[in-house]
């Protein structure tokens, strides 16, 4: 409907508008791309630590694993009635039997602190999250108790708090109606850094006799990395590509 006159008068203004819009868009989008690149930088190449555990099942007896479980209970103040199906278990003793040979083996299982955690993917509110140092935690303030993370976790690492809790410890706040799991003793790590020892490892490492190594998987000089390089290890459900931070030897 525009007349010739309109067009002549509007053209420069329109051109100016597009120029400004383009400049504005560049200013707005460029930092976004930068952020995306930073956010998606490969974990392995960054200087950040990634905390993990290496568990030598050959060095662990059945009672050693019981000691791991008790140490975790004392450290975080959880308790589990053996008959209860609703009590939380942050770490558990698993017995494997080869049906052909009858060979038996015991191992402790806890949150695997995956690099690509399914629990974090499915959490609707982002309460399930992974820290920059690789530790997977639940934010107790934003967990709505939907239990979708428990459906998604391939390792059954998580527990739902089914009843009111008493006598909680300051290092491990817990709450009825929310989900929780192993924190890799994050309170010790935040205090002691790479010198930290999670409670389960502390319970079974005696002097030179070690069964659980804690350390930085990104630091090639760390004891855990050196040992992984020399002896290798197994990732549980490696087929799922989650790259768990907990590795096993002797399986």
């Amino acid at each position: 409907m525009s007349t010739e006159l309109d067009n002549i008068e509007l053209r420069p203004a329109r051109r100016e508008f597009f120029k400004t819009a383009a400049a504005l868009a560049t200013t707005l989008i460029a930092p976004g791309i930068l952020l995306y690149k930073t956010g998606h930088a490969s974990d392995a190449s960054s200087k950040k630590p990634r905390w993990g555990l290496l568990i030598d099942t050959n060095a662990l007896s059945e009672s050693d694993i019981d000691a791991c479980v008790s140490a975790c209970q004392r450290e975080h103040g959880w308790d589990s009635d053996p008959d209860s199906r609703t009590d939380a278990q942050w770490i558990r003793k698993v017995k494997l039997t080869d049906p052909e040979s009858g060979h038996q083996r015991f191992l402790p299982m806890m949150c695997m602190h995956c690099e690509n955690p399914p629990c974090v993917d499915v959490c609707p509110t982002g309460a399930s999250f992974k820290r920059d140092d690789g530790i997977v935690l639940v934010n107790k303030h934003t967990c709505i108790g939907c239990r979708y993370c428990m459906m998604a976790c391939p390792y059954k690492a998580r527990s739902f708090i089914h009843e009111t809790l008493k006598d909680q410890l300051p290092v491990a706040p817990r709450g009825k109606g929310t989900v929780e799991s192993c924190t890799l003793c994050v309170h010790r790590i935040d205090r002691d850094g790479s010198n930290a020892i999670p409670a389960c490892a502390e319970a079974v490492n005696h002097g030179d006799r070690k069964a659980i190594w804690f350390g930085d998987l990104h630091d090639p000089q760390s004891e855990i990395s050196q040992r992984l390089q020399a002896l290798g290890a197994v990732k549980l459900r490696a087929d799922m590509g989650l790259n768990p931070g907990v590795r096993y030897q002797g399986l």
Partner: protein
Amino acid sequence: MKMQSSMRYAEIKTSTPNYWGILVALAVIALAGFAAAHHMDTEGHHVTGMNNQVVWGLPHVFAIFLIVAASGALNLASIASVFGKQDYKPLARFSAVLSIALLVGGLAILLLDLGRPDRLIVAMTYYNFKSIFAWNIILYTGFIVIVLAYLWLMMERRMYKWSKPAGLLAFTWRLILTTGTGSIFGFLVAREAYDSALLAPLFIVMSFAFGLAIFIILLMLSFRLDQRELDHSHLQRLRKLLGLFTAAVLYFVIVFHLTKLYGTQNHDFERFILLDGGIYTLMFWIFQIGLGNLLPLAMLYAPGLQRSNSALVIASLLVIVGAFAQLYIIIVGGQAYPLNIFPGYIVESSFFDGVINEYTPSLWEFLLGFGGVTGALLIALLGIRVLPIMPESLPAEVQ
């Protein structure tokens, strides 16, 4: 357009003791559902049948039934608006009202079964956009808004021309919505019972059948309560449609299990569902396949029953019974079967690794689930009382 201009709609006017009795009963059960939810919230979920192995139980069966049926109930409106079948136009308004009512009932159950239902505001303000749950929160609220707008456009004569594009939007949205509901399970790669893209289309055909079954029952009930004329020809169309949808559900179930049966790795899981899973096997063959698929199919297609209204009602009820069995097997049975963390080993632990997980639903969960269903029915029945939703009569069609 011809049908639209001649069709008259009116509020349900009946005031018989029967009618009020039904409404009061529905309200009482819905309130009992709230009370049960309050009990579970104050005591914690240890009063329910759920545990750390089976984390979604009976409330989720009810909730997902209602949510799936909600999107299916909209089908009749879609057939009219999107596919231009004039015969279905008189049913379009009720189709929209019922779909909103069912969705609200289902969402209420889901919300009240949360560990922290008081944190609804957190769920509405913190979004993890990689979570299918987060998508669903947007899909469900969007569905309610879109269908309300669609309903208004259908009811407001001046705006009627817009009801067709609105119907198309609602139809597209509901397909995405049910895909989202099916994908809650389909995307769970760690569990053998799920981890299948087939769950999304399976949930869509389930929604067609379940939503239509509820629609048929409520349509016949409300016409009877208000003594309105409902000609056989209208029911005959719905009868054929229900038969088709039920057969489609059966087809998808067969393909789902055949796919799993072909590879050796899933044989143990299939054996659990089809052969020795106790309650789940019983539910599968007797309730889902027998009573929920085969018997209604026979009743809907049997030549001798084509004019029987009670056969149609019974077939619809059977489809709903089968729906609950099917969802119970998918949701609870899928969790009862243990995670396969150590393939090839016998696994034991204090945390019930390697065993079939137990789940016995509690009265509280049943009340919450049933309360959601009655709440949805109450909304639908009140909706048709306060708004001109139902046609004044559905006489035999004049050619």
